[in-house]
């Protein structure tokens, strides 16, 4: 029996900026994990992955990352990618803070 499919988000690095991006439900790339589309259907996820891999002039290193049903990262590596490094607020947490201010 194959393992049940668990929720995923499609993620990559942006070609020009290098920063972490996620695929949104509208098919665009967003920088905030909260705006990413949570994929719950395996076929759907695979199609999205193949399509995203074609976008070689926009993104680099596309893959599906595990998330909870609520879209939170399951692995701590994805947590760091979504927030930024822990020694300086130079990653995504910088823009989050800017929004809060």
């Amino acid at each position, binding site marked *: 029996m194959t393992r049940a499919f668990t929720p995923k988000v499609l993620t990559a690095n942006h*070609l020009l*900026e290098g*920063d972490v991006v996620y695929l949104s439900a509208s098919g665009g790339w967003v920088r905030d994990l909260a705006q990413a589309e949570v994929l719950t259907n395996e076929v759907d996820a695979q199609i999205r992955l193949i399509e995203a891999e074609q976008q070689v002039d926009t993104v*680099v290193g596309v893959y599906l990352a595990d998330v909870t049903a609520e879209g939170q990262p399951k*692995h701590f590596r994805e947590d760091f990618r979504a927030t930024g490094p*822990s*020694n300086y607020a130079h990653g995504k947490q910088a823009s989050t803070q800017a929004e809060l201010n």
Partner: protein
Amino acid sequence: MYQYNDFDTAFLTERNAQFRAQVERRINGSLTEDEFKPLRLMNGVYLQLHAYMLRVAIPYGTLNSAQMDMLAHLAAKYDKGYGHFTTRQNIQYNWPKLRDIPDMLDDLGTVGMHAIQTSGNTIRNVTADHFAGAAADEVADPRPYAELLRQWSTDHPEFQFLPRKFKIAVTGAEADRAVIRAHDIGLQLVEQVGEIGFRVIVGGGLGRTPMIGKVLRNFLPMADLLPYCEAIVSIYNRLGRRDNKYKARIKITVHENGIETIRDQVETRFAQIRPAFTGVDQTLLADIKAQFAAPDFAKKSEAPFTAAYDADPVFRSWADTNLTAHKAPGYAIVSISIKKQGDTPGDATAEQMRAMAELARTYGHDELRISHEQNVILPHVHRADLPALHATLKAHGLATSNIGLISDIIACPGMDYCALATARSIPVAQQIATRFDELKLEHDIGELKIKISGCINACGHHHVGHIGILGLDRAGVENYQITLGGDHTETAAVGERAGPGFAYDEIVPAIERLIAAYLHLRNSPDERFIDAYRRLGLAPFKAALYPAVNAGGKADAA
């Protein structure tokens, strides 16, 4: 120090123009990522966790003030105001944009710097003793030989696609500050009946399978340096395994074939190619050597030093901890700690880099060094100038008195930046340093080398730390293994794993227990941690790390 000639400048300009065109072709879609990746890696450009990373070579760790100013300029203009000095004496920028990188390389070119061969399966930046040319204990300055090796290895047509990366380190002293026994080739300048030559060590390395290098030749005449190194890399290129990335380094080639076989083959190859080296390299070497002439050392009274030393306990503590004996009378080697407790090991801001460049111009004969321990060195400072220098360092947050102490920690970028990492390193280093600063214990503890890597590849040299910490991913959780008894010097040793790993929030308390045990066990304040470990072995330290389990492995009744 070495100044680029017209050939070097033209080569670099052309190379940078090539890379600029490659970046343009990647952006306009003419090159795929698979095509572009090897090209960007050859020019030091990685794609890391949050951004691109540019690794700039600092050949044998030597810089002048104009170069340090340029590193500050890159940090301020293209990055987030800082740079990260690494265990390979390089600097890394963590946040460049792809479009900016060709401009960064052009800027570097104006001061004779580049990022060539800071990645890829090539001969990497040649590293050296950071006290070279200044140390009281060296046979000769190793940097001219390192520069000769740099020129020979840069774009060497035979060695652009080696089985794996290849690292050479050179030292001129018996006291090994360049970790030569953990390099693919380690070279030590030695003197034999009035002649200077090299002890050649091969097959050292850390990473997944740590190995201490083995002596290939006890004495190699100076004039044979290039052909002999070429013979070694040539044999490695032929025998090195390309079927398994984890067995591809020369340490495995030496281990699997045996040092005798490697020696026989190297000597045969050497005999073949030696006649092709007709002496051009020696002419080049003579030119290079002239550029590394010692500075014109000043002769003046040391009275200002003595006065400050007697009057100011903060200066005294810094002088006792951060200075090293210099070969010239009245001079000292200054180690500037960029490990202020709680800060990121190896990071310097643009403003700090400019301050250090200015200090080098004013007091330091225009020379700076980067150490593999991620600090900055001013190799030639007259003792009379030290009080003024110290005051400037204090003003820039650079006067931390902790060289060689528990907070002078080597830490790789770890999972805060690195795409290969399995756990974080930086916050572990920050917390250990902060904790022992709070306890005000570090000067009492004395010399102690803590080295932290965030993955098995061991950029943080954990195997050769007195205390090594290796961060791993255990079932989706950060876990830290401790090794004890490692040594990076001439008495090199690979540390012994102490036992099961610790969770992220358990690692600092574990180190604290370990240190408490050492303070209790040492037979005098002069007995260093490593000496106590060698005398007593693992058992008492293991008992301190794992208090719930006694020596018999049963749960402690208490």
